[in-house]
């Protein structure tokens, strides 16, 4: 029974992981670049929430939309002002630009907020649990999982059924020809980056509710996000969900079997995927 609980906890943790990976996979799918500063966007979202909660004593859930909107703007501005200017044939340039950005954001956060541990207090939700027969599930992890699921569903719907979604998919397919249909791809990229930052912010706030974070917590989350995309694959956004769930379960099981291992089993899962199925669990096999 305890094993089932561990697996369920792993799945719920995986929902959060999938959310980390979702923003990154969106950018990768549409712009073919990796945002090394993604982990810092997750943490920046949480720190923004800390600032706003500190200023106005409202429950974090009500603050969510404000932080999300601001972070959307931050992502949009980053893309429009910086990343759009280095997109081209050299894949190293955007990679190194976002690398520099991650260090800037990380250390700015240290200078502005200090290096101490901080958390968002969701009140009684933090320790509340739901009893389902013999199982006991934490309300916060369950809520996090459901939020992640809802966001995946909402994004899928938006991509499949709205004009914006069509435009994003078309730009992802052929960024040159899409201009013939009146689409300015730089604006599409900016809105996708904005969305990615908004998703990162939500993930950051959810993270800060379940564990305490420091400005340095972004690095580990970036690695998790990458592992989610590699394990899941790049076929669709649901691949990231699968990757997140797999990683979450492996972490939960690994922690139970071998508490001192840290993230080792997740890394090993990544290696196995790279060796046995490099396109990911749900990815499309690329023709070399």
């Amino acid at each position, binding site marked *: 029974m305890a094993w089932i609980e561990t697996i369920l906890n792993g799945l719920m943790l995986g929902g959060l992981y999938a959310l980390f990976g979702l923003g990154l996979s969106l950018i990768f799918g549409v712009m073919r670049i990796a945002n090394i500063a993604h982990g810092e966007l997750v943490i920046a979202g949480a720190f923004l929430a800390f600032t706003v909660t500190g200023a106005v004593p409202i429950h974090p859930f009500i603050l969510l939309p404000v932080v999300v909107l601001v972070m959307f703007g931050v992502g949009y501005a980053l893309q429009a002002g910086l990343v759009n200017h280095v997109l081209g044939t050299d894949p190293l340039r955007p990679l190194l630009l976002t690398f520099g950005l991650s260090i800037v954001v990380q250390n700015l956060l240290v200078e502005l907020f200090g290096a101490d541990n901080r958390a968002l207090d969701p009140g009684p939700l933090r320790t509340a649990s739901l009893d389902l027969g013999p199982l006991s599930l934490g309300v916060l992890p369950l809520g996090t999982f459901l939020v992640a699921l809802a966001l995946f569903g909402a994004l899928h719907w938006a991509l499949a059924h709205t*004009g914006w979604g*069509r*435009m994003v*998919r*078309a730009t*992802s*397919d*052929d960024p*040159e*020809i*899409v*201009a*013939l*249909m*009146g*689409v*300015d791809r730089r604006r599409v990229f900016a809105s996708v980056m904005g969305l990615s930052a908004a998703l990162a912010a939500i993930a950051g706030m959810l993270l800060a509710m379940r564990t305490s974070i420091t400005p340095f917590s972004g690095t580990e989350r970036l690695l998790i996000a990458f592992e989610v995309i590699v394990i899941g694959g790049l076929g669709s956004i649901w691949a990231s969900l699968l990757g997140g769930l797999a990683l979450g379960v492996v972490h939960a099981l690994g922690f139970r079997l071998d508490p001192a291992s840290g993230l080792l089993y997740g890394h090993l899962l990544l290696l196995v995927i790279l060796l046995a199925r490099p396109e990911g669990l749900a990815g499309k096999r690329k023709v070399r």
Partner: protein
Amino acid sequence: MAERLLHIEALDAFHGDFQALFGISLSLAPGETLALIGANGAGKTSLLRAICGLTEARGGLLLNGRDLAPLPTPERACTGIAMAPEGRRLFPSLSVAENLMMGARIARPGPWNMQSVCALFPILAEFAERPAGLLSGGQQQMVAIGRALMANPALLLLDEVSLGLAPVVVDELHAALASLRGQMAIILVEQDMRRALAASDRFVCLLEGRLVMQGASNGADTAALARAYFGED
């Protein structure tokens, strides 16, 4: 002389450091069909792309008297230019219907919409929900042309629509294109000289980036044109 829709004056086009077009000058009246003839590498696609703004170009480029040079491609498209590009360039992960809807993003008022495009190419209605990447070459070409038509353009650019297609399919395409003649200005890029002349009012022949011959399609001196095409003389 009919008022000019498109006026190109001394146009040079570049791919990086390589110059693809040298001093091209031509005009097009509304509703006129111009055949752009030439061998591979003559610069036909470069000219179409230069009109759209996809290829860097210098020189006079006016649509209805409006200077296109300062406009980036998305804005040029909004002035009434649409293209079925070389290689079709559909959005492979979008369905046929979605590809057509993308074409309608900047639609001007006019007769072309989903129904009329599907009436022109019935196969599009049949495959409306299918991902465009899964269609055959000929079917994709119909989607590409349909997508361009959805914008109700004043100027339609057709780049090698018959390339790589079976003769039967090409006949079908050209029959459909014949019904478009006169409704909008068309620039038709074709390697097949006879088809090009049959489908157009005037023609222009390019050789290595330069305009070497032009004239009316009806009664054109095909021998002289063949010489110009191959660069003999």
